[in-house]
């Protein structure tokens, strides 16, 4: 084994959670530590042997972690003085123009010398004339710049109110302050370890150790550490395991290149989210634990964030997801593959799971609005490579035509995709490229993590009519509610989950941001087809199941989407 020993020198770790700016991250995520090693490499002359060592480390399976518990400091806003106040003008654009003229002069000078050397008198005289003209222009610009700069330093005859305020703000007492938080913890033991089981070759060992010793901080600049690689470590407190409840960011294959690319984009300006993969972690167990059951839908989603256009709320779910599905079908290789269309070659419905499209709403937070934040393309868990490829190609064609339309302007990695929604207007979507979004509701983990209890966020469209849920005769109504619960239980089984031990059909939902069932548009939209009854529900399974949990006749369109809730969750 080979372990990285990290000692937090001040006794504190100051690092912000990747998905919550007001929460500290503990224990340190392997991806963050990896980034610190890459920073060491980049701050030196980026030697190749160290790059190779880092690539090797990124290839290894995620490490185990040795970390004690930590106490969290109450997070308070600190007010940090800004530095962008000024009373003087910015002459950089003028200076740049002058520099351009100087470059033009040099070029012209070379051309003139070339003409003379060739013996081309006509060209030579012409270039000479152009040079004198340009020379005068440069002198004029220089004099003008000098005069303007001098004038800029002189007191104003009639100072405006804002100029006066800016001046008073330059002094330390008057400086505007911006609120920032610095979430931190104090670990009970300031020494932590990341442990890999592989044994690196001698050259790699040397390079990794040299990198480790150069690491200054893991987290904020005040989170000073001393690191080195060692051959022994205490027993791990967290190990990678598929049924673990803690999700940590880890380095993945090609991480160094991704970091280099991301850095050239953000150049160390906050805020930024680092690329990485997710890995579940949990305490090490000596006995083997049965993996929880997962639904037939994959938890590896393609998430499209809504970047522009009108805010839409969840009752419009099916309209939006239908539009996305139509767009995917139109851009797919024709005729569209079964995994996309949900229909076999002979026109009959698919008997195996196919692609689902879900609208991801802003829910659960106390101020949740129920707005649709984005869409997820969810392949079947058992999708073959060919099926996955069909989905990716459809999206790829769509993105390419968007790229062509924008002619290279804007983000070319994930260009804006337009989705027309009839009278509702047009929304723009952008694929989330780096691992995950900072918005909790756009992270697959939020909807897929193992849980026993689930609550619906969009209502279930029942496969069968349960009877009159709102009958005036209480017996008839009760039978209808029971029947609805039975339909939902069977629906869970049909998506590969065990039968829930408890199903409660709810007249409304008490999670913030969730809309009532009757607010949703009729499903299916086509009036010639049988309209389904829609109800919200609460599910309880005997053991944790892995999501996504989407149940009912509308599951491929995002109706019947459930949210995992933790055991401590109480209805508001």
């Amino acid at each position: 084994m080979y372990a990285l020993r990290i000692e937090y020198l001040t006794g504190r770790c100051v690092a912000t959670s990747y998905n919550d700016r007001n929460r500290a991250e503990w224990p340190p995520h392997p991806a963050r530590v990896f980034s610190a090693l890459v920073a060491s490499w980049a701050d030196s002359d980026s030697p190749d042997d160290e790059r190779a060592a880092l690539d090797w480390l990124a290839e290894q399976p995620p490490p185990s972690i040795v970390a004690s518990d930590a106490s969290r400091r109450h997070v308070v806003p600190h007010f940090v003085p800004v530095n962008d106040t000024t009373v003087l003008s910015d002459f950089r654009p003028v200076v740049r123009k002058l520099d351009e003229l100087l470059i033009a002069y040099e070029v012209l000078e070379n051309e003139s010398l070339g003409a003379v050397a060739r013996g081309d008198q006509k060209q030579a005289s012409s270039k000479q004339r152009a040079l004198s003209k340009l020379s005068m222009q440069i002198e004029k610009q220089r004099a003008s710049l000098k005069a303007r700069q001098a004038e800029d330093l002189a007191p104003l005859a009639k100072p405006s109110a804002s100029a006066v305020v800016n001046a008073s703000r330059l002094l330390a007492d008057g400086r505007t302050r911006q609120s920032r938080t610095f979430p931190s913890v104090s670990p009970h033991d300031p020494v932590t370890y990341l442990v890999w089981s592989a044994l690196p070759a001698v050259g790699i060992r040397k390079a990794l150790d040299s990198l480790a010793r150069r690491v200054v901080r893991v987290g904020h600049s005040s989170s000073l550490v001393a690191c080195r690689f060692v051959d022994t470590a205490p027993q791990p407190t967290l190990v990678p395991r598929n049924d673990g409840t803690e999700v940590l960011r880890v380095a993945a294959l090609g991480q160094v290149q991704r970091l280099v690319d991301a850095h050239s984009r953000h150049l160390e300006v906050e805020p930024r989210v680092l690329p990485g993969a997710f890995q579940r972690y949990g305490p090490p167990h000596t006995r083997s634990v049965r993996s929880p059951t997962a639904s037939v839908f994959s938890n590896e989603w393609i998430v499209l964030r809504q970047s522009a256009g009108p805010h839409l709320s969840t009752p419009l779910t099916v309209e939006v997801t239908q539009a996305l599905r139509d767009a995917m079908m139109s851009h797919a290789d024709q005729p569209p593959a079964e995994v996309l269309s949900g229909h076999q070659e002979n026109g009959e419905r698919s008997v195996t799971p196919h692609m689902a499209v879900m609208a991801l709403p802003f829910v659960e937070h106390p101020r949740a609005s129920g707005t649709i934040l984005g869409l997820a393309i969810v392949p079947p868990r058992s999708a073959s490579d060919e099926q996955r490829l069909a989905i990716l190609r459809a999206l790829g064609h769509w993105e390419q035509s968007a790229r062509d339309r924008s002619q290279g302007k804007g983000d070319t990695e994930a260009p804006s995709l337009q989705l027309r929604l009839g009278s509702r207007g047009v929304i723009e979507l952008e694929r989330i490229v780096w691992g995950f979004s900072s918005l909790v509701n756009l992270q697959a983990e939020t909807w897929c993590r193992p849980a026993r209890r689930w609550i619906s966020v969009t209502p279930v469209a029942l496969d069968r009519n349960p009877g009159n849920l709102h009958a005036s005769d209480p017996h008839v109504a009760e039978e209808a509610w029971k029947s609805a619960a039975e339909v939902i239980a069977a629906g869970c089984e049909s998506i590969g989950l065990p039968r829930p031990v408890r199903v409660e059909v709810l007249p409304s939902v008490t999670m913030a941001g969730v809309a009532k069932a009757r607010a949703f548009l009729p499903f299916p939209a086509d009036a010639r087809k049988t309209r389904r009854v829609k109800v919200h529900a609460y599910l309880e399974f005997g053991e944790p199941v892995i999501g996504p949990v989407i149940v009912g006749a509308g599951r491929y369109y995002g109706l019947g989407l459930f949210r995992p809730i933790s055991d401590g969750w109480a209805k508001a």
Partner: protein
Amino acid sequence: MAKTSELTLDVLERAVAGESAAIRCVTRLQPAGGKGDKIFPPTYGVDKPDPTRYAFERRQIDGHPIETVLLDSVASQANRMEEALFAAWSEERLSFPVISVDFSGEEGLADLDRITTLHAPHRIADALLRDSVDGEGRRFRDTEPGRAYTDSSAKNAAALYRYCPTALIFGVWDSTGPRGGLGNKIQRCLVSEIVGVGAVFGSKTSSRIDPTGIQANVPIFHRKSDHDDWTTDESEAWVEKGKAVPFSRKGAEGKGKPSSINHSNIKPTIDVTAGGVTIDYAIQTTVLSLPALRRLRFPLDEDGEPLVGERRVALERSARTAVAALALAAITELRTTGFDLRSRSLLIPEQAGPLVLDLIPAEGGEPATYTLSSDQAAKLVAEASRHAGKSGLRWEREPLTLKPAPKLSALIRESRKRAAVGEVDDTEGGN
């Protein structure tokens, strides 16, 4: 027990060169008023409801939960260390490069005196320096030191070393310089924090008895001849719609009441969200990161000539050691000036005597301990900087003094004039 020896330049140099991972000092403090006396931690505006406006943390110490509270933050400690260095510099106990903006020659602004890189919030990158000029009227960024600073970075730190070595200790980010967000960013290498351990939160009372004995129910009106002034005489009051207008000032309470003009009695209140604490002890933890210093590179000497081989190694070693010595001096000077954190929060070390430092070995194992007095620290700074000078990189001996741009001085004068008359509204204008 063997007496702890004092830190020497040789030991420091070897530590900086690679023997140590860090230098750490931990000092226990008590309130000046004696153990158990109430002190007041910094308050932070927090969303109500909140049990306290202090930054507290429940820690595990020896297996028991103990309440702790932040007494002085990393940023605040850095500011105090800079102030302590300034005091030592102006009293000539320490000599190192400082850049200042001198207001003493500016009409009406002499009270601002000199604002140095040790005072400006963003140090050498501060907006105030940007809007200042040298003796020939050139903007700071157009002068030689200014241009050298703009082009500097951790990989080429000579300019910072020559003109503002304290920026190498406390960190600096040139976010609004000519290169915008690409501007050089130097990581801080010194981090210090004071935490109170075993905190028990108290409550604070506030009330005021008005010595002039003005009754609370005397009506106050705006004066007719000057709306910013007040009067109790209705005949002199500003009348609107047949009624005298009650006096109110923005931000003051009690429209029409004496409390709006800061008179009269204030009912006693009990503030339980920021009522002070008692502690078992306070602990100041200060760490100097040596990998951070080792990250500083000096590829050119003071003449701009590239350095190679042994010469470069020697210069980098001695320059980093000089910066380390200055950082240690900051710590000893802070100890000398004392820990007067804020009103009713004066702390003193539990143990008298010089600072005790731990040199944490890079290879692991027990730290080596040394003492360091202010005098010895000053000697180390002088010796180390001389050494670096011999290796090819000297500190600028002449402090670089700038003057505020004439436009700036005029505007500040104008701002003061308007504030005196009550015209300046601090909430207007851009952010």
